[in-house]
């Protein structure tokens, strides 16, 4: 691989890392607060069992409520 190809690859990867972090903060940040509340409610109710009886609500990570 020539140096030119490496340069393009690294710039793309750096850009992806930057955009990825911004996207992650937006998409995961809000949803995770709601999920934390659900987890704490389950822990308080003592229903945090080893194997869940009901299936968890797992919307795609890009959905932000």
């Amino acid at each position, binding site marked *: 691989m020539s140096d030119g190809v490496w340069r393009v690859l690294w710039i793309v990867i750096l850009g992806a890392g930057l955009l990825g972090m911004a996207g992650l903060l937006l998409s995961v940040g809000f949803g*995770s607060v709601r999920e934390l509340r659900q987890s704490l409610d389950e822990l308080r109710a003592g229903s945090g069992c080893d194997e869940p009886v009901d299936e968890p609500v797992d919307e795609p990570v890009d959905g932000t409520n």
Partner: protein
Amino acid sequence: MELFRTEFGTIDWVIVIVYLAGSILIGLWANRYVGGLSDYLVAGRTLRIRLALATMTGTELGLVTVMYVAELGYTKQFASLYLAVIEVLALAVIGATGVVVYRLRQEAVLTVPEYYERRYTRTVRVVGAVMMVLAGVLNMGVFLKAGSLFLVGVTGLEDPMALKLIMSSLLLLVLFYTVLGGMVSVVITDLIQFVVLGIGALVVSVYVLGELGGIEGLWELSHRAYVNPLQGDNPLTAVPADGVGPWMLTAQWLTLSIAVMLWPATVSRTLAVKTPEVARRLYLFSTIPFLARRTLPALWGIGAFAYFSLHADLGRDLQQAIASNELSTLSAMPLYLAKIIPSGLLGLVTAAMLAAFMSTHDSYLLCWGGVVAQDIVAPLCGGLSDRNRVLVTRISIVVIGAFLLFWGLWYEIGQELWDYLAITGTVYLSGALPVIVGGLYWRRASSVGALAALVCGVMGVCGLSQVIDVINGTFFPDPAGFQVFPALMMLVTMLTPTLVFISVSLLVPDSRHRSSTDGESLVREKLS
């Protein structure tokens, strides 16, 4: 000294102190949610995908990660990004296929060694746990030092005693809320740390990019930097073979691919999620934060490289300080940030980095403490009540914390920080790879083979620069002839336990196979 000039002021200290005080309050508050052992170690397995992802990012984007990735960015510039490619590809494959992690979560164990007992024997569990804790604590031993170097660089705090006191206080703070609230506390604080850290990382990256002249400036810089990792010689230095090269690339590819799958702190998060499917998806989505953790700090290191090249007088001072061992290349990035980020924002960035420091420490401490209680003390004592297991976990966390303080203050890192971490990680990973993967997928995997492989993992310490010096001095004294080098030792020590595991398993099989596959067959037979 101009090199230590910083924008860090009173307002920055206030921001940092307020943030730390908040962490103490959260630790106290989280304690109310801890009911039993499962709550304490894996938060009752209540984590869903977003929360698991946020806390995994908090754990994996630690200050030590920021420091070693930035160090590689400073010393090897763009070529250092090969680690990002390896890690993201490995995660994507695991996330797409669910290989290992899906089955491991199906086992519904609390720790990896617990799986060892289920699949092999109790002895394998105890030996595996000892190896895991040994490797993990050695690995973690340099985290404190990396954190202190960051603080010195950013705050300009040169008094060694003040620095030791601050780092010790930080460790005590983490111990406090981890001991008290276990995984519940870790998850809550990690979530907050994820937000603070994410914002801080973006702010720094934007500043660095602006300082470099945007994408165009970065592109220009790439023409006078090290870009090709296949090149074993860094073209910017006169030192031979100080680049990456095919040997190191192969060794890192092997180590990193296994680490993202089996590193205990990562696995503990896998075991804490609700279902095996969530575990698989967690890996797929983790490609994004893992890409960020390998690229953003590298960008800061590249920025430091450009800054100290442009400001020749400061660059010369830095090089002299590195040559006289007063500083190391780890300090380049924090010294650079202290000069380009204004007061106020620097406090936020420092709080973000301390968040990174704490979010890694808490998860790691809980992970190793849990393993000591669950997999060493409990099996050796013939079982413990849940209450006593939580107590032993808490005591273990405090003991490990005391060791970290001692080790972090006197151990001198003989190589680049990442190499040290990869080598100490090999002590655990090289043995765990055949034992876990073989246990999950190979019927003939035997307990004696597993024990032999785990013990062979000790060879991993041979990759440390101090041990390599001894090996070369004893067996290869001619510097012009063959010499052992870290990448070679990493490859040898990573592969040997697997070969030993296969050979011994074939030579000394178990009297009866205990694989989960057999268990499933038995159930099917009974049902039919």
